[in-house]
């Protein structure tokens, strides 16, 4: 993205009025290449490990209880008796069919297991991303435009304090305080089991369970956005175009959001994309702390049970999620910045 801005800075004049494509081809290709590389690594690593690839794919213990017939069948299924090229092709094909392998702990296809847990994780991380970015941005703008004044100092001080905590520690602290001492929120789960809520009640119950893990994630993620926004705000407010805006007679609020804020949003969006992967790992920990039925809990369980296919499947799904979110943010970014949008 950055490179694109620098090297091809002047768009062809007559393209100004063509509606810029939402996202240029080059960056989609980038994502496809990234995905292929990840898939390839996922394919090769178990096969490059010493010993039997089946052992690497299914783990030692699974192999011990395996009957020769089953082993035969699995070998055939992974095309392990064929040349490497064919193996790779059949791996990709089975991925296309949605076949991520078989979880022997759950005794079900991995994809099916994951799809039961994935929505909860998406809900949690998605909300955490949106809320922490919005709140962090808002606080950063207000704080940055009041640099050195009391509100700025109080905000800066308290947010810096949070930034020191890891996500799971924040989760534990919140859980202890709100869940154990105050008993305001449930200690685990995503929904009250067997309550049979529907409609609004269901949403309320859902939010009730979501509040603490979400708060833990937002509070920790907030700091990065806040600090970035604040410092970018301070730089932007010194730019010449802010002076132009003042000379136009723009009211303070318009200068703060329409002029400085809009410009500040650019690095914030970029940073949100970069930090999303970090947020996902944070979510995994937080889910474990709150026993939230998401991929984090599932991964933890699969680790305990050494369910290798499940683990690999979870990691692959998470990778695809991270890539997708980054792609979406790129689309969003090109809407925000005309310099990038025209850069095709």
């Amino acid at each position, binding site marked *: 993205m950055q490179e694109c801005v620098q090297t091809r*800075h*002047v*768009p062809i*004049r007559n393209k*100004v*009025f063509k509606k810029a494509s939402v996202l240029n081809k080059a960056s989609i290709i980038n994502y496809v290449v990234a995905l292929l590389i990840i898939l390839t690594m996922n394919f090769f690593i178990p096969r490059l490990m010493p010993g039997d690839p089946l052992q690497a794919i299914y783990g030692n213990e699974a192999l011990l209880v395996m009957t020769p017939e089953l082993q035969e069948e699995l070998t055939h299924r992974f095309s392990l008796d064929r040349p490497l090229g064919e193996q790779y092709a059949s791996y990709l094909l089975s991925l296309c069919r949605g076949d991520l392998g078989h979880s022997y702990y759950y005794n079900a296809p991995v994809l099916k297991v994951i799809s039961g847990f994935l929505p909860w994780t998406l809900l949690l991380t998605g909300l955490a991303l949106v809320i922490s970015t919005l709140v962090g941005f808002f606080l950063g703008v207000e704080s940055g435009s009041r640099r050195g004044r009391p509100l700025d100092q109080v905000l800066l001080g308290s947010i810096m304090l949070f930034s020191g905590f890891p996500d799971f520690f924040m989760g534990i602290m919140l859980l202890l305080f709100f869940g154990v001492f105050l008993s305001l929120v449930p200690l685990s789960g995503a929904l009250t089991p067997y309550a049979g809520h529907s409609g609004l009640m269901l949403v309320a119950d859902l939010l009730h369970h979501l509040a603490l893990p979400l708060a833990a994630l937002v509070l920790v993620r907030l700091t990065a956005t806040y600090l970035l926004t604040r410092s970018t705000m301070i730089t932007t407010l010194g*730019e*010449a*175009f802010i*002076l*132009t*805006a*003042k*000379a*136009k*007679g*723009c*009211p303070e609020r*318009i200068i703060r959001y*329409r*002029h400085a804020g*809009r*410009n500040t949003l*650019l690095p914030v969006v970029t940073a949100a994309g970069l930090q999303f992967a970090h947020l996902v790992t944070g979510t995994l920990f937080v889910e474990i702390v709150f026993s939230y039925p998401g991929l984090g809990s599932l991964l933890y369980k699969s680790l305990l049970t050494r369910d290798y296919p499940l683990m690999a499947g979870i990691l692959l799904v998470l990778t695809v999620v991270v890539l997708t979110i980054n792609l979406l943010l790129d689309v969003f970014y090109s809407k*925000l*910045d*005309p*310099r990038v949008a*025209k850069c095709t």
Partner: protein
Amino acid sequence: MLTIKNLKASYNGLQILKDINLNLEKGQVLSVIGESGTGKTTLGRAVMGLLEGRCTGEILFKGKNLLTCPEEERRRIRGREIAMVFQNVEDGLHPLYSILYQVMEAVLIHGLTDKKAAEKRACEVLELVGLDNRRSLAYPHQLSGGEKQRALIALAVVNNPDILILDEPTASLDALTKAEIIAVLRRITREKASLVITHDISTAADLSTHMAVLYGGRIVELGATGDMLTGPRHAYTRGLLRSYPNMTTTKDLQGIPGRMSHHVEGCPFHPRCTQRIRICSAEAPLPAVEGNRLIACHRGGIVPLLEVRCSKSFGPLKVLQDVECILHEGETLALIGESGSGKTTLAKTVMGLLKADEEEIRLEGKKVTRRTIDFYKRIQMIFQNPGESISHRMNVLQTVKEPLDIHKTGNEEEKLERVRQVLNEVELPGDDAFLKKYPHHLSGGEAQRVAIARALVLNPKVLIADESTSALDASVQAKILKLMMNLQEKRGLSIMFITHDLALAKKISDRLAVLLKGRIVEEGPTSEIIYHPLHPYTRALIDYAPLLEDRSARPAGSRWARRTHSGTCGNSLQAAPRLKRPPSATSTGCPYANRCLAVKDRCLEERPELIACSPRKVACFYPPVDYKIQSN
């Protein structure tokens, strides 16, 4: 419309503006010029109310003091009634909005709610500044520097403000774009009161009706633009003009010595001024009206150092007839003329080496009746032939030290020190071996430098140089002239340069006086005379001045082809002036009549007086028609 009274502005205790008084009327374009750091931009921002620092005094706009206005009211004035275009075109526009949107916003925030109307108005203004519909939809990164500047101007004028402040509107634009922007601005500023802040004097000259020179947070000179450019009266203004490269003036670039500081007591310019006196460092001068100018200077601007009026005749031959000239401080006046025109006689008469029939000489305003020893301390002369003008019996030390002996300044050691110092100044070695050399040991260039050193050792204010470099070859001459120009820049040396070489005079002089048969026939700023000579004699001198080109390659009839194609050029002089009447020294007519091609009967009978033809003077009845002679 806008009145600024006693405006002071400071940042962190550092006072940038000290007592600014200005008045701006509708239709006026006032340019504020000065070096960077003199407070030009601060002034603009103070009027806008966008100054970070503290302001005191009064800024009256339509009778209201803006400095005491509440912020909300100022905001409403900003951009609607007083608008400003800032310096720094590159970042002045928001990178994420289209030009049209940004211009529209300026309309919408001032109360207009109808988006369609706002868009229409924005389009009109963008059209006015030369950005069509297609360009106005573009984003800033798609525009060139000139287009960005146009967009910024559109932003400022979209609400039709009464007062427009332009901060370096043409900085960093190429010449053609600059000319287009200036054309746009001229159209726009016609109906407004405008303030143009710039260090680019040519922009100021093009745009403004009035010009104010700002130095150290004070206005040092203010007047009509044309007057200021042809006749700067404050030493700082003159320094600015001298250091500004342009196609009008011909003198080599000269700077202003020293550097600007805001921590100066008294007149802000006095540490760099070459004509300062004691009071300059004690108190700041108040602006006072001097002729058509407002000047803040204890000395009333650049002082006339030497005023000469004299006549001299050798027997029946009138060598100087009522010659009148003025030499200002820090200025070079070139006296030009063919041999026998009385140049050297004038110099010797001024020095008192020849007794004039009639003379009136004023040195620094005081009439000189007797050439006392003090007179020679202030005024020194370098003679035509350096080899001859230095005594053969004196070595370098004795030659240079002699004036010090005569004036009894200091003891022997101090004198030696001073001699070494002045030799160093003229770029000669000050070692003992050199000091013991005799004139015949020296080359022509060295001898001339010794002569200059002798003239400078008393630190005179006026130097009369009589053909002092004509005996030298060009490279040595160039060095010596550079030296004299440097001394002029550094200590405000006034030079009366007598030469027959017009090309040389063009490079080093501020003003030119053309001498013919003991009379000045044309006098004025050098560039004016060189580019637009009025007197036929001056034109002849210019036609015959040295050129470095193959003139036969030029098309016939062009300005450069005069000499080889003389018969074909209308106004210019022809190769061999014909004698119309026998020359007579006692003739009552124009001294040039017998050689002039455009001679008429009147020229033979009556002598033309030197009359003002702003900004110069000329003595001719029939100057070229395209010049209007102003009657006195």
